[in-house]
């Protein structure tokens, strides 16, 4: 089963992050790097990425065939996706063990969701 581990960020965690010493920030990045390496070595990692700041996001809408973009940041979004891991593991419990290693989990900002599988028996 594939699962997406989503790592969120919010104004509170950004403040906490900015208050970190360089050594503390390095330690947090190291935790992500170590998780990434362990997932890859286990053959469980599909892909993982950290996302650029939401101020660089563009919202896309198509109206009457015309593509319109608007620039972020989008005030209504208090929490935003900061990064993700797409993994394949036997059980969601095992994924939760991985997710608990993510530093952002200390702030309750890590979410695990199953991915819809493209196969299935006919009803």
């Amino acid at each position, binding site marked *: *089963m594939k699962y997406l581990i989503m790592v969120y960020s919010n104004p509170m965690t950004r403040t906490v992050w900015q208050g970190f010493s360089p050594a503390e920030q390095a330690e947090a990045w190291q935790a992500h790097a170590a998780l990434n390496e362990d997932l*890859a*070595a*286990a*053959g*469980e*990692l*599909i*892909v993982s990425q950290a996302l650029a700041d939401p101020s660089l996001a563009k919202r896309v809408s198509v109206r009457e065939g015309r593509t319109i973009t608007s620039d972020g940041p989008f005030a209504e979004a208090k929490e935003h996706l900061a990064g993700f891991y797409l993994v*394949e593991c*036997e059980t969601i419990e095992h994924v939760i063990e991985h997710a608990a290693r993510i530093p952002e989990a200390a702030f309750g900002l890590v979410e695990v969701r*199953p*991915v*819809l*599988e*493209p*196969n*299935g*028996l*006919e*009803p």
Partner: protein
Amino acid sequence: MKLATQVEDLLRELAPQVLGALVRRYGGFDTCEDAVQEALLAAAVQWPTQGVPGDPKGWLITVASRRQTELLRNESARRRREATAIRLEPAEPGTAPEVDDTLALLLLCCHPSLTPVSQVALTLRAVGGLSTAEIARALLVPEATVAQRISRAKQRIRTSGGEFRMPPPDELPARVTAVLRVLYLIFNEGYTASSGTALHRAELTTEAIRLARQLRDRLPDDGEVTGLLALMLLTDARRPARTRPDGTLVPLAEQDRSRWDAASIAEGVRLITGTLATAPIGAYQLQAAIAAVHDESRQAADTDWRQILGLYDLLQGIAPGPMVTLNRIVAVAMVHGPEVALRQLTTAESDPALARHHRVHAVRAHLLDIAGDREAARTYYQLAARRTLSLPEKQYLESRAAHLAPPDGGYPSGGAGGPVR
């Protein structure tokens, strides 16, 4: 048939035989497997343009042996000591007892020390002769992930003492059971909409059937091996009718049965009939028997649900589980009516293993649907659609819910949903 396709089929057939010959000669399953993989790739490039050699198996063994010595030379000192024992002459073709090699390889690739995803990847490569890239495309994961799974699996086999030989007779049944589970996993992985991007995955069902045939050649008297092959054939026979052109699923009850593969059905029925008469009963045989009852009904309305219910009763006795319980309840509805089935579903739900199973809602929706309670059915179809982990099933459940939405001036008529398997 195009030459490239012929070459591919030939290579896939020879892959386990060549690997078996190499492992028997040199030992060291993991290095041999890499060497054979490279020989297969070389052949896949050369043979279609330069022609197939007179002794294709001997060619592959020679090339793989050469590669094997190179690989060993590049490895550690421990490895180098082993390499001194290597004989360099090419293999004598035709002397390899490939019958046992394929079985021993299957058992090794499905070694109990490995996780199911690793067993699947290793089996597809070492026995199926697929490349890492092909496996990655079929499993919808990056090539690096598959490569890592294979190398880790081989490492784990080495450290846990897995050997290329037949296990002792008392271990054999459990080891064969593991192989059957892996083949069924491969089959189900591929049993999806056979359109567009899903094509590579659909080939997995063909591959699973091919491997199950090879296994049956080796263990013709094992009822469960035959049962699994029959189950795959009888399920795959419905493939042409199970999806609409837009890729959505057609429930069993609404499929155009004239499009079912009659040859596969005939073979599956022949296999399951033969084995039920001779071998001890098992879960795959019972599932195959159920599939056979469906496949032999000319119309959905002709289905012998009494027989299906009897088979589910037996299945629940020897291999109980949430899916068996739920499928049996669907059969109960067809024999005794939806009210009886709904009462049994409520009782079954008190089992914690079942209470959280997403199919409970789908089955309840179906039962309410045939009972005529369209509004409640719609609610449960919607609930089930939110809980499923299968995209085609989600689309199907949503379409059922939409079909039951009250339009202006009353409900639409007709179109009962199929039993949810």
